[in-house]
């Protein structure tokens, strides 16, 4: 029965299925809700408390729905001196950027939303580099001192985090000899790239926290200094939208990490169908990466902006360059 449904869907509705159901809109929405719920429950356990319990009988699973409904029902307040068009536009567009990048990630053999052969890895980075621009627009158009300082900090942090992460991805592309994410995943059938590219992975993993703007690098929204950073002035549904953008951003970078270093959709055979099998393994890996991310979030204090920049320029960029040199040497030796 399941096979028949899969076969039917695959032959008739595949492009639409990819965009709307999996790995498109529905999946992104459901997984974002799951990620927020998972973060709240998991962090609560690490903090010796329960997390949400009341809404929904089992583990408070309806809490996120309740929160979302509450936020949507709230009044949207536009600050008097804000640049209103940009204020609305930047917040509404924010989740679209990482969602567009996720379209390039292969969830199975030749199964991405947008099956583009060729330069998908640089294209992914290109799309993701738009994300901070919208954050800066949000901070600037709010016309508030706290949001403006948050936006400035995003610029600084971007310089400190984006360059090392791009250089780390360059290392992987050099090792694989291709720009194509699909080919990179296929080459990891026998050995994950985290082993030959270990230096690059360390750089990627540290810069990852700067790109997702979570502790210890949640510098732009530093609660104790800047209230809520660049999104201080957003209320109601707009705030929900910025939060959605935040989590889709986490999802996009985690999926890139899995694709580049942890063998993408490869894994032992569980389901006979290769696409179902790939989707299963990519979700398992995603949950493990998120667990590690949340554990790091709770274990460290926030760095100061100058300390984050020093980390980026003094340690991560030289390490990434050393990784590239090492990769080139190993490649020319024919390893």
């Amino acid at each position, binding site marked *: 029965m399941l096979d028949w449904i899969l076969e039917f869907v695959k032959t008739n509705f595949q492009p639409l299925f990819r965009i709307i159901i999996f790995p498109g809109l529905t999946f992104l929405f459901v997984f974002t809700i799951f990620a927020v719920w998972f973060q709240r429950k998991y*962090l609560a356990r*690490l*903090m*010796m*408390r329960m997390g949400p319990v009341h809404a929904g009988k089992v583990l408070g699973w309806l809490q996120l729905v309740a929160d979302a409904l509450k936020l949507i029902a709230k009044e949207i307040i536009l600050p008097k*001196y804000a640049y209103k068009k940009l204020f609305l536009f930047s917040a509404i567009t924010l989740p679209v950027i990482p969602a567009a990048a996720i379209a390039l990630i292969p969830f199975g053999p030749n199964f991405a939303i947008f099956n583009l052969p060729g330069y998908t890895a640089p294209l992914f980075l290109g799309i993701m580099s738009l994300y901070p621009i919208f954050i800066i627009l949000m901070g600037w158009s709010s016309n508030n*001192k*706290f949001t403006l*300082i948050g936006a*400035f900090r995003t610029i600084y942090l971007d310089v400190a985090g984006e360059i090392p992460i791009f250089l780390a991805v360059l290392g992987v592309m050099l090792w694989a000899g291709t720009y194509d994410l699909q080919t990179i995943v296929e080459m990891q059938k026998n050995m994950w790239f985290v082993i030959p590219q270990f230096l690059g992975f360390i750089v990627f993993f540290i810069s990852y926290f700067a790109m997702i703007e979570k*502790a*210890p690098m*949640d*510098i732009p929204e*530093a*609660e*104790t*200094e800047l*209230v809520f950073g660049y999104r201080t002035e957003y209320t109601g549904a707009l705030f929900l939208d910025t939060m959605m953008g935040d989590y889709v951003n986490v999802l996009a970078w985690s999926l890139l990490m899995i694709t580049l270093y942890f063998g993408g959709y490869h894994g032992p055979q569980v389901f006979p169908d290769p696409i179902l099998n790939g989707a299963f393994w990519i979700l398992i890996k995603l949950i493990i990466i998120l667990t590690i991310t949340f554990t790091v*979030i*709770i*274990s*460290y*204090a*926030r*760095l*100061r*902006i*100058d*300390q984050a920049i020093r980390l980026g320029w003094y340690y991560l960029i030289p390490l990434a360059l050393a990784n590239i040199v090492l990769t080139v040497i190993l490649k020319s030796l024919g390893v």
Partner: protein
Amino acid sequence: MSHDMHRYLTDPFQEITELGDGLFRLNIGPQHPISGQGRFLVITDGEIVYDIEVDIGYSHRGIEKILEYKNYVQAVVPLERMVMLDTSNILMGFVRAVEDLYGVEPPPRAKYIRTIINELNRISSHLYALGLFAESAGWNPAIFIWTTADREPILDLLEMITGARWSHSFFIPGGVRADLPRGIKERILNTMDYLEKRFEVYEDAWIYNETFRLRTEGVGVLPRDKAIEWGAAGPSLRASGVAYDTRKNEPYSAYPELDFKIVTHTAGDSYARGWVRFEEMKVSVDIIRQAIENMPEGPVKKTLPPRPVKQEALARAETGRGEINFYIYTEGRDKPYRVKISPASFRNFFVIEQLPKIQEIKLADVPPMIYSFDPWFLDADR
């Protein structure tokens, strides 16, 4: 030391205008995640802080005036509202002053009970302060919730002894209200064992954590001479290398008979202030153990004579935030004519205002710097 009060408070509509030369005036409070019931006006150029002004008085309740209408036992209740976390230590100074006024010495068992409650309160106050300090350094609320959870057994003990978790109203001039309940000693000792286990966890996860030290070491350095000149109080003073503790320098209650050391640190930065608080909790655990071991038997309170024997009295006590001073003047009735309170937070706020003048402070350093002093607006406002 000319201190220009209310330098930036003149024009409330200056909020959205710049002060010139690209300077911003940031209103940290009274509605801000770190501010508490007050306001910090921070003059910044982007990330560099030029000046901090502390705006107190948002929670002024006129406690000094209220005390003029209460007799010395009634006065205990409004007085406790100064610092709800640290009620018995605040009360200790007042009770000492009144006992001096009436020439009464509390019985020895009452002194030991007071010491135990004071130290339990000090641990709970320091735990709360350190949790806020960790959160101000940009930690997720993890540490704050840990410390809040670990205050619970202490509050349970206090509830068993006094009947209330926070506002005990347990010390009265002449002794304490009641004796210890049966079986409390084992319970206290068990809690102390539990706390010592938790302190080890804190050391591993938090006190010696790399990012926490990065954020707090070398931030808001208060040199020894300046600490004395500006009148820093309590752990903030001891973190600058001054071994001054009222429990040792002017011993009261059972402290002269107990063996403990003053915790000091030489660095004088935010980390040192937090570290001194952390080590003081261990000292408090030690003091409680000794007090339980050496506790004498006997009555726990004395009745005050009808008339005070003196006209004025001055007494002090070491609270969680530093030394508190009480001056009482009376005209011989059962109520004071005037009570003057000099709390520790007020003096520490003055130090916070002075710190940006002697060193460069970044905006991100402001919250850990402020919270390393454990300021309490309700304490300063009275």
